[in-house]
């Protein structure tokens, strides 16, 4: 279950459009340096260029695992805010297609909730750098959620 104080923090973060206090609760969010901002009714996630996230020293390029972690975390945060799950969404599986090298610059991600079932959700995530129409990676994830009301 999501404790009442966390739930309140969530609602407050979304109302104010300031997600920093929420991100501060997640150590991995700080490790890679994810940021989140409101864009109308949607959320835009940003991963600022950070030398600690480099995987290929020659290009240089962001580690593919960091790009995947950024996208998975974006999807989880998106669900925390937009799904009515009574608990923290739990990842079931994650599949990513790498389309281009993620260069050493800011990376963005946006999520699309394709299906919210009673117990499982399907989310698609797109990540890009300069141009939203030329993504560096696309991914999709299934998360287990808990219905607000018990199933039986």
């Amino acid at each position, binding site marked *: 279950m999501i404790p009442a104080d966390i739930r309140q923090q969530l609602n407050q973060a979304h109302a104010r459009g300031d997600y920093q206090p929420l991100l501060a609760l997640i*150590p991995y969010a700080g490790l890679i340096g994810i940021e989140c901002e409101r864009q109308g009714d949607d959320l835009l996630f940003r991963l600022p260029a950070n030398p600690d996230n480099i*995987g290929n*020293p020659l290009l240089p390029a962001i*580690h*593919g*695992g960091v790009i995947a972690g950024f996208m*998975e975390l974006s999807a*989880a945060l998106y669900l925390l805010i937009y799904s009515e799950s009574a608990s923290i969404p739990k990842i079931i599986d*994650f*599949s990513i297609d790498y389309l281009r090298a993620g260069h050493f610059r800011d990376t963005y991600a946006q999520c699309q909730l394709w299906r919210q079932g009673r117990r499982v959700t399907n989310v698609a995530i797109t990540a890009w750098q300069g141009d939203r129409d030329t993504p560096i990676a696309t991914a999709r994830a299934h998360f287990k959620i808990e219905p607000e009301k018990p199933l039986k």
Partner: protein
Amino acid sequence: MNETPLMAMAQRFLSALKHCQVLQMRVHHADADGMTLVLPWSPAIVGNPQNGAVHGGVLTTLMDTTCGMATLCALPRFEVCPTLDLRIDYMHTAEAGKDIYGHAQCYRVTRDVIFTRGTAYQDDPSQPICQVVGTFMRLGQDVKGGIRFGNSLKEGRA
């Protein structure tokens, strides 16, 4: 543990990857059958503060690196092999405080593509935290940076 040329090459390769150094990843074992890396648990890699569970992104990073480095075990010479795709199935959460091992092997090598699979586990390899399949593109040795990087690995300058 015996220091084989493959182990030494794997260690040099891993030491060139900044984010893997941040995560303090090390080569545990490498032979013709596959690559095993180890990632020590630390508070910084936690994704769920309620139970101390490691974030999936850390496991993805471990397994992307392990699967990618498993190509070193299967190729006669170093080639740059970027990830085409990766799929992770999460079996159960990683326990706080315990090292995480990643093991991967190449099960098919073609002219252009390498198919890999692997698992991450803590105490017991038969109880994996996650199962992974990943496909890697062979860019050969002629790509920009490829041969230079390959040579520097051979000579231990990376």
